[in-house]
């Protein structure tokens, strides 16, 4: 009798645990994205009055939400990122599924790369892509080299694809940037 009660309690507790994973799939259609006012402002000079401003580090909440990352994946195709970066494998633009990050691997650095554009071909999407979608794209870009936890990364592509899904990609430790490539050394 007591055993039965224990079993029942444990079973309910196990089902209760399942609820913990609900947030992973939460679909916020009108959510506040991380603030980007400090990242989304470019200066022409590195000179600053006083001590150097410490780098802004931003936690991208979208990296913990599977829906947001899958939206990033959808936008990656919708906004034709595929046109240059292929499915992350690179083509006209550098690959995004490897360990090499020319302009930084942190979320706010990817945000700045998308918004500001980069020399040798990366266009600036400032004003053309809403901030929250840039954050979703940044989350997805990081998932391509396994920087996100596996339960958040997309587990399957919508179309035929030769590469392994992001969720099965082993994490590649970002290598320190080797500096900005000259145009003659365009990343292959």
């Amino acid at each position, binding site marked *: 009798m007591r055993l039965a009660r224990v079993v029942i309690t444990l079973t309910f507790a196990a089902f209760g645990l399942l609820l913990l994973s609900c947030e992973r799939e939460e*679909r916020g259609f*009108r959510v506040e994205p991380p603030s980007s006012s400090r990242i989304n402002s470019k200066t022409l000079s590195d000179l600053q009055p006083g001590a150097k401003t410490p780098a802004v580090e931003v936690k991208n909440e979208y990296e913990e939400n599977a829906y947001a990352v899958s939206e990033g994946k959808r936008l990656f195709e919708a906004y034709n990122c595929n046109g240059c970066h292929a499915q992350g494998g690179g083509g006209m633009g550098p690959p995004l599924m490897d360990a090499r990050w020319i302009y930084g691997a942190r979320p706010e650095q990817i945000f700045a790369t998308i918004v500001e554009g980069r020399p040798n071909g990366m266009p600036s999407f400032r004003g*053309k*892509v*809403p901030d*929250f979608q840039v954050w979703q794209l940044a989350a997805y870009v990081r998932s391509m080299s396994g920087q996100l936890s596996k339960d958040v990364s997309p587990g399957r592509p919508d179309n035929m694809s030769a590469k392994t899904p992001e969720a099965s990609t082993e994490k590649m430790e970002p290598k320190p940037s080797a500096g900005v490539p000259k145009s003659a050394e365009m990343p292959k």
Partner: protein
Amino acid sequence: MKKGKGGEGKGEKEGARATLRSALRPPLPLFPFALLLSGCQGVQSALDPAGPQAGRIGGLWWLMLYTLTAVFVLVMCVLVVAAFRPRGAYRGETASAPDTKPDAGRERRMSRAVIVSVAATVVILFVLLVSSFLTGRSLYSIAASGESALTVKVTGYQWWWKVQYDNQIAGYVVTTANEIHIPVGRPVLFKLTSNDVIHSFWVPNLHGKTDLIPGHETTTWIRADRPGTYRGQCAEFCGHQHAHMAFTVVAESPEQFKAWYDNQLKPAAQPSTPEQARGQQVFMSSPCVMCHRIAGTDAGGAVGPDLTHVASRPTIAAGTLENKRGHLAGWVLDSQKIKPGNRMPPNNLEPEDLQALLDYLQSLK
């Protein structure tokens, strides 16, 4: 218990008749259901056919309704009679003294009744089966009629419809969204496919449903014999806004269709006032340009609906809202409030910019 056997039986019979009569009288609360029949008319009704296929489907529907209603009523009558008939009443038995002796005549009558019922069931099912088959076959007869057809390609998106009129010359392909114009009396071939998940194309007044499947092309035929505006609806659950995925079919005379088609062929109207010019600049410098196309401008996005002639459409957001300035404003600013989950992001526009943008969009006739 045994005394007054005959009289009691008679009283029971009378009582049973009275109960039967009151059971057969239609209860008052059922009358509102009759009002439902008024839903049989209208812009989205399979019972108000405007084309040969819907007519045949409608005919089959009515045949089934009448037949099955008759069967239902008959069965219910027999059931009610059986329920209220005193046990053994046919020869004066009572419940306490059942007559268990076999009766050859009665057995024969019962066998005959069962045989007749089974035969009737088989005949009815056969009639319904054959008429279903014939209806299904006749639905495709206009496909074989060989008349020169108009070909329309419809692509389902979450949650709107892209409509393209096929033409051998690429520049003559008309692209619009959520609105299909067809000439009356001419068969129209629909080539259907989907961009994301399975949708289903359904204009009840014109035809049954056909699924749109990603990576695969399905076809269906439609012919409207009577001018009018008909509402179509996605009929396969496809996500959050499945219910708000509608479109309009406008069946009109060939001349009116030609006029509409020629207008759709033109590139977008150039801004004619300073406000409209400002609105165009707002459009080109904001996220709008990433997804929407306006022919004749630099906006060439293929992700969202084509806006070249957006002001000429009766609705926005796939039949969700009437195409009015206020609705358009609400949609541009915060579409997630109106249709949560749709692919259009909210836009923070300054009031002057918004008004200018609306001026421009409303000039795209």
